[in-house]
């Protein structure tokens, strides 16, 4: 702070606020660093929408599920399920249907059976198995949740973090 002796009263008062302004400048610079960290984290996928941190892949038996570990509320994220030939049904539990809204299924399943234990999807596959991509939108409240489904007789209980 400078010696404000002899300065006009209004400017003396402004000079008295300088320690506060210096703290504001320090906080601003920290916040700029924070913004760079946020952008870098977003590039890595920490906020969903793609990126290495957001992608998950799990194989159980002959079935493989690739999903987005980090998602955003209201945004569509793909769940890619690879099923072996034979018992290739995909079952979506009731809590899946409470937490996600199915937007699209590619290719469309040959049949859908709905019951108290959820949906059972019969994918259109070949002798080598089948691949089904579910475009699902996270609904409800943000926070951690589980993505539970059963593919080819194997249970998948996958962690998902949903950002607001």
């Amino acid at each position: 702070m400078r010696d404000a002796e002899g300065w006009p009263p209004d400017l003396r008062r402004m000079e008295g606020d300088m320690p506060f302004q210096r703290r504001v400048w320090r906080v601003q610079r920290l916040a700029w660093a924070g913004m760079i960290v946020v952008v870098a984290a977003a590039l890595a996928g920490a906020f969903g929408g793609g990126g290495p941190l957001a992608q998950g892949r799990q194989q159980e038996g002959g079935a493989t599920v690739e999903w987005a570990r980090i998602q955003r509320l209201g945004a569509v994220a793909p769940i890619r399920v690879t099923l072996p030939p034979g018992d290739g049904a995909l079952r979506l539990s009731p809590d899946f249907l409470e937490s996600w809204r199915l937007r699209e299924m590619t290719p469309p399943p040959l049949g859908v059976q709905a019951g108290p234990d959820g949906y059972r999807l019969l994918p259109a596959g070949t002798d080598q198995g089948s691949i089904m991509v579910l475009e699902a939108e996270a609904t409800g409240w943000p926070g951690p949740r589980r993505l539970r489904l059963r593919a080819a007789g194997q249970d998948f209980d996958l962690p998902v973090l949903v950002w607001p």
Partner: protein
Amino acid sequence: MESVLRAAALYLVLLLMFRVTGRRSLRETTPFDLVLLLVVGEATQQALLGEDFSMVNALVVIATLLAIDVGFSLLKQRSAAAERLLDGVPTILVAEGKPIEDRLARARVDLGDILQAARERQGITTLAEIRWAVLEADGMITIIPQRPEAPPAHR
């Protein structure tokens, strides 16, 4: 309820981000600043409204934003600390004709900006004619010229 929470959260996030970005960035609105503001508005629109484009949702969001804005203005009126925190404080950049270099650097203002403000508002063209320059809380630069010297006495 979700609309109110969305609007309140977005108001606070935008307030915080613009506050920490600093005054300099929006001090003089260049055409690019205008485009940037439009893009920010476009980016926040979806987050504000979600998928509900009804009149009621728009009304709720607008009422929430304005209510928070009025609330903050009342808070600032009653509390000097809140006003300093939310709006910032003026900063003297030129004192008694001498530029204060470290403040100019920290405020991201250069002498060209001060001279531009001096030209535009006072018709002043040289630094020697400036006695005080103040970066106001709203990002404008106020120029106080040197006192005119007393005319020499004529006999």
